[in-house]
């Protein structure tokens, strides 16, 4: 099953699963239509819908199926050499840096409309939203 990272105009991010790209497009187009029509995000719930700003497609969930604790050995070596001062390192800083390396999401905000995942994805053209009135 493929996944998409949907980035809304507000900066909200959402991972969406799909088997069929048309199913994904239909769902996002409907939410986008609600946003530009001033409708709610969900029936009987007074919360506004949000416009879709970017969609990135991944072959699987960009966070990975299970937690992956492996880190490239060369990366750890460079962390060690980069942190060394007078032949010593701060162990807690090293642990934090290694933890950030293991994380499938960037440990620093990449910007409101940028992907939060390190995985490589393919941006989906948003022309399917142009059929939505007023998009």
């Amino acid at each position: 099953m493929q996944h998409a990272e949907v980035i809304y105009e507000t900066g909200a991010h959402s991972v969406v699963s799909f088997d069929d790209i048309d199913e994904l497009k239909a769902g996002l187009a409907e939410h986008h239509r609600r946003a530009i029509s001033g409708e709610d995000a969900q029936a009987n719930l007074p919360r506004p819908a949000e416009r879709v700003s970017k969609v990135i497609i991944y072959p699987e969930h960009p966070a990975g199926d299970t937690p992956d604790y492996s880190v490239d050995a060369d990366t750890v070596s460079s962390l060690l050499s980069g942190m060394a001062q007078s032949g010593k390192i701060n162990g807690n800083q090293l642990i934090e840096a290694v933890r950030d390396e293991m994380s499938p999401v960037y440990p620093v905000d990449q910007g409101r409309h940028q992907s939060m995942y390190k995985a490589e994805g393919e941006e989906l053209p948003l022309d399917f939203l142009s059929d939505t009135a007023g998009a």
Partner: protein
Amino acid sequence: MATIVFQRWTDLHLNYILGNSGTITPPTTWEIALSTTAVSAMARNSAISATVSGTNVNEIGSTTAAGYARQAVARTIAQAGIDWGSSSFDNTLSTGGTSMAADQVTFTFTGTPSPGATNSWFMGDGTTINAGQIYVAADTAATRNFANGDTEKVTATMKSG
């Protein structure tokens, strides 16, 4: 709203914080998920399972996902795009403690998931539906049923004290 802390969460504190376990460790990201099971039907040793039985926690979307997927919260504080916010401390002896909220996560639906009637959210690890560890859970404000084009928001808040 009912909440529950599961055995894995307390094991993590004992083994990883008080002790120094290499086997019970935090995941690389926290994953927020939705469940059909109300907290009143859960137990501290509940497991996530596709089988609706006993105190199992049953995740939505296992038969028909309809867009459903777990949403990641980074293991950082006020740094990543979606992570934990700064904590607040209440010194009141009887009711106080430290609270910490994660940034809100968003679920998007392209249809009606099955199973789909959502009664709670939980914090787990990994992204495979009905698999992985479960740490904490809380009831949703009301039972939610989703349709094409819907989104749902969850703001995970932890309190220790």
